[in-house]
């Protein structure tokens, strides 16, 4: 062999000690770095959770909705469905890769299409989750120190006393007149405020006094793993002494379910993951059209499908962890 040929092989990228092509290796390395990014986020979530271990929201009580089933307490069923959709689309992706190995264009097309549909269902479900979370459920009162006070009463269920949540809108009594929202046009031009909470703390206090059976539940988790319910006197005292604003739903500043950090991490981590799924869908669509117009058919090589497949499976892999740490643990 002449030197020139050997050089072309060895130094020109001809050697493949790991038996994987350049593109596939780079996809693996990207996945490693992205996995570290996600684990950084999840570890930060873990840090905040350990920091507030005795007051962290309980996921089963936060994510209790299922589309079209109003008022039904369905913890986790919907996320389980989302997990299944994503695993299923991972399966169709790996089937597309397998069909690519057999150079079967029509099968690759079908499976890529199904993968894209699965991804879209997942992103749509996530949008629905966000919407439900942002709108909120029962509402709560935030204290001066930023703690959350929720309402509920004991109800007899089959001879057992069970604590059932009561919504702020059901107990609040209209006590005083309206407070007008401060807009830049009718006050100081450089000061504005966002839309006012639907009820004032005064209205809630009057409501609490009027409804004799309603109690306040704090964020603190007791030894049974449940949130602490205060006595009637302590409930009134807490709200009157510390209540500051009425909170409905969750955003980056407030969160009716408990620590605002929970909402921040929820939006950030599921948002970042949803962004990955969304870009995965876009990449899948591009590859899908490349398959349809026969680019890889002419190349006699469907490795591109394999590479986007790796990315797609990685997105599924991350979701498995997000599912565990946000919804189960």
């Amino acid at each position: 062999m002449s030197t020139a040929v050997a050089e072309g092989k060895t130094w020109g990228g001809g050697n493949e000690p790991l038996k994987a092509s350049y593109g596939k290796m780079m996809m693996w390395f990207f996945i490693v770095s992205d996995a570290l990014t996600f684990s950084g986020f999840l570890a930060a979530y873990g840090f905040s959770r350990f920091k507030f271990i005795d007051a962290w929201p309980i996921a089963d009580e936060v994510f209790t909705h299922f589309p079209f089933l109003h008022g039904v307490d369905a913890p986790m069923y919907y996320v389980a469905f989302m997990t299944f959709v994503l695993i299923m689309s991972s399966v169709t992706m790996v089937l597309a890769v397998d069909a690519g190995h057999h150079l079967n264009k029509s099968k690759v097309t079908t499976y890529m299409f199904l993968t894209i549909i699965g991804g879209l269902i997942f992103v749509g479900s996530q949008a629905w989750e966000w919407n439900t979370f942002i709108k909120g459920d029962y509402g709560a009162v935030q204290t001066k120190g930023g703690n959350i006070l929720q309402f509920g009463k004991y109800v007899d269920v089959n001879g057992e006393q069970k604590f059932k949540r009561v919504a702020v809108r059901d107990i609040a009594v209209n006590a005083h007149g309206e407070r007008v929202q401060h807009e830049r046009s009718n006050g100081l031009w450089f000061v504005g405020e966002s839309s006012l909470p639907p009820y004032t703390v005064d209205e809630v206090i009057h409501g609490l006094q009027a409804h004799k059976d309603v109690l306040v539940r704090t964020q603190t988790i007791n030894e049974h793993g449940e949130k602490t319910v205060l006595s009637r006197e302590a409930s009134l005292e807490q709200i009157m002494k510390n209540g500051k604003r009425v909170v409905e739903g969750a955003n980056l500043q407030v969160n009716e379910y408990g620590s605002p950090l929970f909402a921040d991490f929820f939006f950030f981590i599921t948002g970042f993951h949803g962004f990955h799924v969304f870009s995965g869908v876009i990449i899948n669509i591009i590859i899908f059209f490349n398959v349809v117009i026969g680019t890889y058919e002419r190349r006699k090589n469907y490795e591109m499908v394999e590479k986007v497949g790796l990315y797609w499976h990685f997105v599924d892999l991350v979701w498995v962890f997000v599912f565990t740490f946000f919804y189960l643990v």
Partner: protein
Amino acid sequence: MAHEHKLEIFRGLIKFKSNIQKIWGVLILLSIVTIVEVVLGILKPEWSMGQVLGMKILNWIFIILTIFKAYYITWDFMHMRDEVKGLRRAVVWTTIFLISYLVFILLQEGGYVFDVYDQGYIKRDF
């Protein structure tokens, strides 16, 4: 391009005839694990509420099942099983080492900050 796939899972306990069959087999496995997780999460059985190494037994079960799922997604869907040792180790051990390190430090410190708050150096709602 080599297309050979290793068709055994569970160290050869289950052997599949073709790659497609293996994919469906792994799907069934992952679905069963997910269903077990959801059922445990809803029932929260009494025995799983005990504390082991600072966490509930149930949470440890969830984490182990998650790693189990992650293994099968990487090994069979991402075809890590068919890659050479060098690539496999470069990817897997790097992430495992760095992530364990990061998680250990952050959780340790989170627990410490909780203790500081708990001993009353900070008061909310006064």
